[in-house]
């Protein structure tokens, strides 16, 4: 894109404020799904809200966020194809309540925070829903097929001074994570992923 830059242009910016403006565009395409720039920004804001920090819109953070969202898209596709059950509204309501209680003294503070971060409750709910969905996906798709032996559980419990139940849970979880990583690697390889660089500059 050629760039023209002049003083009359700067002076004309006020007039330019009334002309066309990009309100959204594709940041990343994952197969036939997209992550738009507004998706990306929203995700950065919501995560910042969850972590209680200022949103970081630097190119590095945008790329990192896009990377996570790519994985989300791959998993969403798998969920659709395999018809895994999604969490219902009734399941999500207590999670949102819990978040509010944990992070804010009252509803007013919560609403102000949403306004400060430029997001809506629906945006937050979507991210929470996604987190829930991801956990369920890992549980159904990977954890249910992980096998651990009693010897391995006992060894880990001894090593990390955990109860047997905790050691088993930890072992299953770490193996499932490995499988998730491998699955994501394979899914990325099979899918055409294009990052539109102009969005990350």
């Amino acid at each position, binding site marked *: 894109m050629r760039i023209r830059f002049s003083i009359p242009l700067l002076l004309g*910016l006020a007039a330019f404020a009334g002309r066309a403006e990009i309100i959204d565009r*594709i940041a990343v395409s994952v197969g036939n799904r997209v992550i738009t720039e507004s998706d990306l920004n929203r995700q950065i804001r919501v995560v910042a809200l969850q972590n209680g920090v200022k949103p970081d819109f630097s190119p590095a953070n945008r790329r990192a966020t896009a990377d996570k969202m790519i994985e989300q898209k791959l998993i969403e596709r798998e969920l659709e194809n395999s018809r895994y059950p999604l969490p219902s509204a009734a399941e999500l309501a207590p999670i949102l309540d819990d978040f509010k209680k944990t992070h804010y003294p009252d509803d007013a503070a919560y609403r102000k925070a949403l306004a400060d971060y430029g997001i809506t409750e629906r945006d937050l709910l979507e991210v929470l829903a996604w987190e829930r969905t991801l956990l369920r996906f890992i549980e159904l798709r990977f954890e249910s097929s992980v096998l651990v032996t009693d010897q391995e559980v006992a060894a880990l419990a001894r090593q990390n001074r955990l109860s047997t139940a905790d050691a088993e849970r930890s072992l299953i979880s770490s193996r499932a994570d490995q499988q998730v990583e491998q699955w994501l690697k394979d899914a990325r390889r099979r899918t*055409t992923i294009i990052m539109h660089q102009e969005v990350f500059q």
Partner: protein
Amino acid sequence: MVTELLERPYDKMSSVRPQHAYLPGLVLLIAAFPGIIPAQSNAYIGRSVVNIRFDPPRQPIEGEELFQILPLKRGQPLSMDVVRESIARLFATGRYADIQVDAEPYNQGVIVTFRTRNSWFVGNVSAGGKVNDPPTAGQLVNASRLELGTAYSDASLDQAVNSQRRLLEGNGLFTPAVRPVFDYDDRYQQIHIRFQIESGRRARFAPPDVTGDLKVSLQRIVAATKFRRWIIHTWKPMTQARVSRGLEGIRNLYQKENRLEAKVTLESVRYDPARNAAIPVLRIEAGPRIQVNPVGYKFPKRRLQRLIPIYEEHAVDHDLLVEGAGNLRDYLQSQGYFEAQVEFKEQAVIRDRASLDFLIATGRRHKLVSITIDGNHYFSTETLRSRMFLQTANFLQFPHGRFSGSLLRRDEDTIRNVYESNGFRDVKVTAVTQDDYRGNPGELAVALHIEEGRQYLVNSVQLEGVEKLNRESLLARLSSTQGQPFSEFNVALDRDAILARYFESGFPKATFEWNSKPSANDPYRLDVVFKITEGQQQFVREVVINHQGLKTTRPSLVARQLQLNPGDPLSPTAITDTQRRLYDLGVFAKVDAAIQNPDGDTDRKYVVYNMEEAARYSVGVGFGAEFARIGGCQTCLDAPAGQAGFSPRVSLDVTRINLWGAGHTVSLRTRVSTLDRRALLNYSWPRFGHHDSLNVSFTGLYEDSRDVRTFNFKRWEQSEQLSQKVSKATTLFYRYTFRRVSVDRSTLKISPLLIPLLSQPERVGVLSFALIQDRRDDPVEPHRGIYNTLDLGLAEHAFGSQFNYVRFLARNATYHPIGKRFVLARSLEVGVIHALNNNGDPLNAIPLAERFFGGGNNSQRGFPDYQAGPRDLTTGFPIGGTALLFNQTELRFPLIGDNIGGVLFHDMGNIFSSIGKVSLRWSQHNEQDFNYTVHAVGFGIRYRTPIGPFRVDLAYSINPPYFRGFKANNQQDLVNAGVDPCVTYPAKCVLQRISHFQYFFSIGQTF
């Protein structure tokens, strides 16, 4: 310009809309105020959408569909969720590579503009330039893996070029230049790619670089590769096939050394540009010598190598040994050792040697003598037996019968499945084997006991979810109907039938589920529910013919074959039907068909066809031979019944297809043998008058033949024929033929003084009608069906004929399977030639060359070729007849294994002098009487080949004719003997007879 658009997609847009160039200035301005977080364009959120525009205005999706897809609507408040959703839905169509949404204020509202960049799809892919074969241009195109209709990307192009380079390097072409040249089709978003390839010089092999534990000398390894020529020792040019054969050669070398675990790997091929040499880098691990010992039974080495897969796989592992043990056991059981046990034992390696023992306990040899089935009521025993692999012993095919534990289990499963698929869900099948059956040692009997149980029936069938298709037409296709047996097999058939109907109607995502429950009144009657989810129906947007492959063929010829129209449901059946019709034109070497953008979320799709024209000229050379009673010299008179002869044959055919680009064909076929010389020129015009069922052909023929023993003749003939395919089985022919036949007087084996008519050249013009009806299951080796032919011709002065006659010839053949193994085939052929306006001897009114001549290979095996029927009373040579009756009956059966069959046959019939003389009498009244029916019986062997069965027939003629023949040296002797040679020279007139024994060799069934 279009290429630039791909490389710098927004250049064009920025030149049209200069405001985007100011965007960085705006960003800088915003950055000067750090308190502002980049907003989600809050200024426009909530404002009413006054207008929705697209840039460019011409979009790859049609207007109506576009606005249906878009959730953003005019008059609605602008919401970022809806904008995001709009981008997602547009992108999901697959037709866009990039989408950007702009907003600009207008009055109190906002104008939203979607700025898009189209994606591209692969169109025609070809390869050309200086391509050193191998690889061929077709292989290079296949290596690119650029599939018609799929999304194009730069990454896929890079992969394509890399794959082609690898293919070229694998064939010794290490310095290729591969340059893709693009041609863009904006209208259909296609990118046609032609790979211009300069393959360069092919490298030659050089001495391979071999590492590892070889255990044999390098010289022997190099010799095994055959990379070097024999004797002269120059290195061959490298090709992929040679490399592959070379590696196989090394593996075979090690196998001969019994090093069965040898691993031979081609790690890489190094290229030396200075010498243009390719150095294969090989890694070899020879492994120990392994001796395979079958203990307890002796196997020929070749059989052992076939049965134990370690030889073929060039590896020794547990799975292969288990498979080998199983194969040995199955083989032994097929030889009657039904109790055979096989185990294997691997010995340790000592001094580079190891032993692999197969311990075999054959047990006693048995013979399967009896298979009985009881408890069956629903199916007859014959029906169940016809589905079984087990066979009782019979003389030739299975001397010990066919039995093994696995075959018995397979037959039990087969019978169980047959019952279950007919509603007997609770069926039990138990097999009991009895050794020493009826006190006979080694004789085995198998008894199958069947408890059928109750049959489950369908009480009712409900179809849910059917909205767009006709429910009644779907119900009519179902196997599961009220009162019919219920089975999951039938449900599977119904699922396939329903989904096939949906797929044909453009519903690619239709799904099928089912459930069943017992009805309230009867637990053995089930209510079945089929639930259909139709999904979105897809339609043809347009049929796109890529013209890059059409150099000669007229586009109108292609267009007439299309079975799809815009707006039709997107039916895979119609797509492949069009593809088949294009192939049937006979002018294309390749026809690719694809749905463009198959994964895109749109309802209307382009169907794309790519064609590659076949080479227009083809030349064929053939060699053949015939060995039968066809011999004897052309002018000798001493062997009227024929002698054993051998006739080699050479043929040369030249064909030019796709004449005028209209699919017409012209061909020249020539054949030269000791029996005839022939040249045939044919012009064929298929789909005459744009009718698929009509074909016209024009033929010119020259023939110089001595097929008939009585005379040689020359024939010039031209014909015009219109054929009409009435149905799949039935074709009609309308033909006009004009021919001029002249008998070569020097070869005439009958006296020209006696029958001057027969030695004159003749002109015949015939208008004829023919019908062929073929309802056989297999034209090469039919097992059932019917085959009828009818030919009716009229020769008249008005058609340019010297002689007026009507000719009728008809054949009816039927084929009947008897049990699983036998086929009864029969054929009846009748014919008559009736001279018009003739008061004399009907035989004399029909010229010699127009008469029926028969007997031999395909009509009556009691005679040598063309030896049936009336004979010249002086010389004894056949003179043909005007009536024909042949009946052939064959019993065809398998003889040895699957490829060798046998035939018992009975042929009867003859050629008769006239229709009035046709007689079924089987005795010959005297040596001048030939109007009786000759019978022959015989035996034949058929060996199945890819081009049809190779046939040997040996016939015994029960009542061949006697005749008197004048034993002269040549025709002049005959002339000198006067009108009645047997009175003039009685000693030269001898009584002869057609031999009782006849033999024939040929290809193809008799009929």
